[in-house]
């Protein structure tokens, strides 16, 4: 096994190592000893103890400046005569501080107050590209300097490190999840699972349990092991699907997707990367109401998801990260909207996050062609997530080392 990051502390850790060793020993005792069994057992053990990443993509370029608002800055108000949000409406990150959430984000603001939200300001990459396609491609591949990179950063994680991933709600796999040779599954919706939970489905699984007998040979045994593990997951998922949710999710597309994600996690599905998208952020015209609505939907959905995770005791292990391909220009356009910009804020929501602001408030004095300059390379966020949430060596995914952010330290250790 490759050494894991931060693998030498706390009590929780010790029990995990114990369990893992135990499973290994069991595997060694089995005759004959297929390597794959070791592998599968290892995966199962890992799935029980490691962090879970929920990546929320805000597609279209979220207006960061109207999401985490520099409401004290006169340059902000001057540049946005019809769209700026006043210092009294913005929900301050801290009393008298320079930044405030959009007024519709009351729920997330409350979570922030409880220390469960980190805002990372000024995230971006050098030489910002203002095309949706290209900028999203950069975020997905984590390779700003290269073109035509066929695989995504999470896809590489899947392929290199055997972490399972799942996209929920999209129609096709986003580039971020494209992996060499493996099709990361996309579940457009979860309702069809109910077929499997019909009496017929349950009966079938019952019968199969008695049929799946351990085989000698490699691939058939691999199939059997995977099937058994899947049935166990399905059993858990069935119990969860049958029960009413412990929290009520609001009625929006993003809430629906996060609800499904929550159900998968609660059901013990072995995926540790979930990918969900939210559309509508390309607000070139008549932005005010539409953006307010997006902010409310986002805030309410993410908050509901957090409470869900808390109720099932997963709020420490699950880390939700919300990003957008770029922010928007400081200056509003002539259509009461905003055009494509550069750096923007990221939200990280988890009980194990170090709540508060990471990075500096946007510097509206020194702009890059009218846009907020990036102060934190997005790959530093990725590196942090890869190592501290997913527990994989970030360099193997990102190609070179990036210094991590103090995003999950301290509290995360206690969590595991």
């Amino acid at each position: 096994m490759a050494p894991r990051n931060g693998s030498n502390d706390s009590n929780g850790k010790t029990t995990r190592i114990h369990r893992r060793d135990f499973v290994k020993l069991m595997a060694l005792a089995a005759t004959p000893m297929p390597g794959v069994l070791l592998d599968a057992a290892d995966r199962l053990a890992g799935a029980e103890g490691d962090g879970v990443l929920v990546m929320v993509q805000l597609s279209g370029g979220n207006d960061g400046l109207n999401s985490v608002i520099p409401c004290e800055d006169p340059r902000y108000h001057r540049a946005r005569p019809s769209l700026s949000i006043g210092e009294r409406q913005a929900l301050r990150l801290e009393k008298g501080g320079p930044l405030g959430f959009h007024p519709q984000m009351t729920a997330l603001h409350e979570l922030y107050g409880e220390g469960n939200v980190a805002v990372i300001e000024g995230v971006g990459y050098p030489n910002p590209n203002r095309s949706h396609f290209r900028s999203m491609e950069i975020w997905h591949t984590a390779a700003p300097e290269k073109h035509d990179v066929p695989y995504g950063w999470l896809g590489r994680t899947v392929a290199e490190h055997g972490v399972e991933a799942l996209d929920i709600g999209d129609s096709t796999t986003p580039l971020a999840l494209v992996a060499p040779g493996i099709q990361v599954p996309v579940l457009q919706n979860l309702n069809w699972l109910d077929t499997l939970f019909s009496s017929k489905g349950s009966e079938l699984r019952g019968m199969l349990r008695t049929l799946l007998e351990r085989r000698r040979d490699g691939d058939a045994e691999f199939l059997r092991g995977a099937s058994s593990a899947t049935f166990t997951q399905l059993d858990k998922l069935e119990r969860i699907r049958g029960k009413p949710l412990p929290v009520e999710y609001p009625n929006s597309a993003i809430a629906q997707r996060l609800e499904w994600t929550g159900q998968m996690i609660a059901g013990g599905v072995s995926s540790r990367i979930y990918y969900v998208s939210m559309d509508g952020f390309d607000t070139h015209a008549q932005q005010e109401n539409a953006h307010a609505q997006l902010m409310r939907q986002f805030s309410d959905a993410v908050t509901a998801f957090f409470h869900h995770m808390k109720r099932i005791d997963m709020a420490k292990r699950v880390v939700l990260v919300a990003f957008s391909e770029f922010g928007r220009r400081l200056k509003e356009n002539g259509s009461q909207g905003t055009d494509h910009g550069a750096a923007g804020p990221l939200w990280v929501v988890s009980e194990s996050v170090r709540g508060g602001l990471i990075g500096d408030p946007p510097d509206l004095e020194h702009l890059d062609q009218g846009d907020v300059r990036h102060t934190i390379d997005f790959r530093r966020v990725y590196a942090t997530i890869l190592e501290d949430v997913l527990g994989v060596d970030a360099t193997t995914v990102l190609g070179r080392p990036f210094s991590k952010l103090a995003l999950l330290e301290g509290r995360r250790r206690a969590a595991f």
Partner: protein
Amino acid sequence: MSTTRTDTRPDGGADAGVLDAGPEALETFRPGVDGAWDRGAAAHLARRSGFGMPPATVDRILEQGPAAAESLVADARRDGGGTQLFDTARSLNSIDAAQSWWLHRMLQGASPLREKVALFWHGHFATSDKKVENPRLMLDQIMLFRRRGLGPFADLVQRVAKDPAMLIWLDGNLNRAGKPNENFARELMELFTLGIGNYSEDDIKQAARAFTGWHVRGISFWFNRRAHDFGDKSLLKRARVKTGEEVVDICVRHPASSRFIARKLFTFFVHPQPSDRLTDALAALYERSDRDVGRYLGVLLRSRVFHGEDARRAIIASPVDFAIGTLRSLEAGAAPGKLAERLRDMGQELFRPPNVKGWDGHRAWINSTSLIARLRFTLDLVEEEPIGARVPWDRLGAGGSALDGIFARCFPGGVSADLRERVASACGTTDARRILASVMQLPEYQMI
């Protein structure tokens, strides 16, 4: 989490046992000497040369003997005739129609081998409609695989290099003299002909120059003279190379290509892990066959190694094998329009391979989500309506118990008494739906 693998093979799976043999293993299988020629052997050839084991096909192969392999290849090489359905799909120009058409061919076409070979090349020259966004061009590419997939490999690659879908897929139009785009040149060497490690970065650069100006205009190949670099190129130890055609020719005749292609075909049709020694023998056979895919495959499919114990049920069924194979074995109809989505859920969406590497296949087919999707497909099949299936349940139960009927279809070569016993005690012997649903989940069944 980093996982340790005792032995990693190129497709990403862990070692399931290398198949070692020498050149003699490629000699013609002699019934009675090298093994029995029985229903099990005929079903094995049916599974590998097509999808599933329709009783009539197994009967015919059984009667013809091991030489059936050659007639299967000959049938697949013949032009399929009527293109009316193809024209309809093409006219509709939707990916749904394209997927449905091909699935319809797989389900009902006269030569399953033709479709299987096309599927192999679809995974090899993996082009995705996600980027091409032109279902007609995608259909044309599949038609190319169907028509030329069993001919000389050189001819196939020459045509693929000028295929409009491929040109769009690998940015042909961006490849201009003075500003070469290496996308196609790189994949040509790495994925299409030579395999990684058999060329240098400079070879790619030189090859890219030769393909400059290979553009697509409208929906056709167009040699854009103004964008072509007419200068001399030197690559793979050859000097004064001029055209893209020459580059393709050099690549397909390169010794590394023989090993690469011969081995890849073997892993798809015979066994996932040939040893190096066996690969040498395969490459030699491939070259002896004049790099003609059909001739090579014809020999392979009646060889001793193909009919050997180790090759039997040695490949994990792909979603297409699983779905189409089951339907064909049962002689059941289904609505192709509803199958494409199920295949996507199982991890093999036709016309949309995950990336330029194609599907890794083998163990990469299997994960919890894809298994859930296989389970769901099973339930949909016995329920019939969700996938518009028409299963001849009466026929399955005829002449004895449903258990016998289904085992005859799913394991024509017989199966251990123990397994039969266990299925009988779990599902009884009369309820065909229950029995079929269970059998389909057995690892023994999901290995083809």
